[in-house]
């Protein structure tokens, strides 16, 4: 990550921590609405990679605040596909947090005289969870790269947005199920933080396009490309 993006993330972490008490106001005041506005227009001049990094933090720290709306407000007009793209960033952050909480829990919680993480059944489940998180991260990063290569043109990045939101949606079922299963009853309480990421994940899966919506849309696009054409398009779009 570049130094500028590191600084942006540090700021986001600090501001979002304040926003947990103060609502969206401190985030607005800190200027996150200008993140994607060009420097010439008085903005921060950030790219989608920056937005993705900030949204990952928002997905963990302030999942219930309209941070995506605020960040996208710098662009006009905002196609719904970009809202889907922004949601992928939130989902990547929340899924990573679900993994982190799960690792922490199984390494501390003792049963049968040893930490849960010593049991192969638990290890295998967490490996599956980690794979889904990796897939979501990679999808979010590749989508960001395409959006940045096309100057945030949602039409030109239609394949990547569809694929990334679909992949993120599909990860939700596995991530929430395994994270809750390895946590046991404590993860089902209001007091413990797991629901602060799993409920938003469930909500985001329904927002800006379900699995079926994006799958059919992407499937039609691919059908139009043909079998060989899919490979040619995949490689050309990333080069």
């Amino acid at each position: 990550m570049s130094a500028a993006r590191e600084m942006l993330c540090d700021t986001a972490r600090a501001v979002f921590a304040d926003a947990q008490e103060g609502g969206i106001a401190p985030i607005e005041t800190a200027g996150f609405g200008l993140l994607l506005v060009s420097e010439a227009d008085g903005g921060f001049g950030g790219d989608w990679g920056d937005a993705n990094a900030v949204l990952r933090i928002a997905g963990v720290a302030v999942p219930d605040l309209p941070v995506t709306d605020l960040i996208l407000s710098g662009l006009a007009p905002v196609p719904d596909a970009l809202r889907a793209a922004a949601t992928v960033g939130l989902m990547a952050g929340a899924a990573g947090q679900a993994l982190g909480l799960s690792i922490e829990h199984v390494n501390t919680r003792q049963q049968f005289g040893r930490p849960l993480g010593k049991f192969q059944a638990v290890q295998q489940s967490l490996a599956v969870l980690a794979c889904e998180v990796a897939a979501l991260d990679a999808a979010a990063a590749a989508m960001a790269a395409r959006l940045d290569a096309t100057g945030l043109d949602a039409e030109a990045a239609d394949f990547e947005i569809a694929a990334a939101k679909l992949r993120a949606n599909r990860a939700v079922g596995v991530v929430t199920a395994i994270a809750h299963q390895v946590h046991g009853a404590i993860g089902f309480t209001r007091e413990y933080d797991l629901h602060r990421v799993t409920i938003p994940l469930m909500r985001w899966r329904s927002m800006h396009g379900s699995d079926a919506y994006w799958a059919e849309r992407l499937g039609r696009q691919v059908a139009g490309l043909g079998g060989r054409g899919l490979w040619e398009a995949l490689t050309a779009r990333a080069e």
Partner: protein
Amino acid sequence: MQGFALYPFDPPGDSSALRTGLRRWLAEHQPQDDVVRRANCWASFDPDFSRALGAAGYIGMTLPARYGGGERHPLERYVVIEELLAAGAPVGAHWIADRQTGPLILRYGSEEQRERYLPGIARGETYACIGLSEPGAGSDLASVRTTARETAEGWRINGQKIWTTGAHLSHIMLALVRTEEGSERNAGLSQLLIDLDTPGITIRPIIDMAGHHDFNEIFFDDVLVPHAALVGERGQGWKQVTAELGLERSGPERYLSSHALFAALIDAAGPDPAPALAVLIGELAAEMWTLRQLSMSTAAKLAAGEDPMVEASVVKELGNAFEQEMPRRVQAVVECGWDDPDDLARLLRALLIASPSFSLRGGTREVIRGIIARGLGLR
């Protein structure tokens, strides 16, 4: 761990020109194979094709020129192999030598071994097999019992290897053997580079459930190989094998084995598929695109000189799941008879039968998940 480290895939030079050149070359030189041979094509042996590919400079690409290599960047090689796999080219003959044996000889081998073996590998003429599994050492590789005793004349090898893909068509085997008497588990192991025409070696076929002869069992009966067959450091075999497995697990072959079926499905669906079929194609396309990112990122980490053990395992786990699920999901949606003669039905049948092996070869799903769990800080 905390997450899969994402590395940007940024090969030097013009990779689209590299792709275009290879696509043009393939249009001229790829044999008009039966479509079923284009699936899982890194198991399709075609020495004539391998030689032509080597002559064109597409094998041993990363090796130094003095050993006949192309001195290209590892990510340029990645571009080439993903193109070969996506085209369904019959790359099986040279696959293992190019992917892991050559790089391992370059890294750990003696000057004599490099000069002796690498030029043949780069020409697509010298083929290698992997001597790891034994009857008592499958997932539990550290239970290897084949021994090599150092004598005045050289190493005397006794024991047995099994599930060795392509041994009957290969010239050399890179074998993991126990060189230290009384040693246990992963200590006391070494790698030997064995010419398979050495007296005392018996190779017997094992026919798989598809009726193919891909793997073999190999018996070593007092086989004498020279002292110079030792690769790398005596007793460091485990460490060297671990590095070799990193090369083996993360490549594009871990998600492109079933690609011929996906392409046939898309073509059979036509430009206006029924909704259920469109959904299936969309889901498969999204997963394939995601896997490509993961695999490219892992290749970039490897190329940066770092050890992507966990990342490679993630690619293998998700890739195997993808390419195993694909024929099952296609079967669930597409109406075609088991014995239908069209390409889609034949590919489907072949991959349904071949796919159980995908999460066995190169490390079972359970072993791979265990490696990921260790990377997460469990255990």
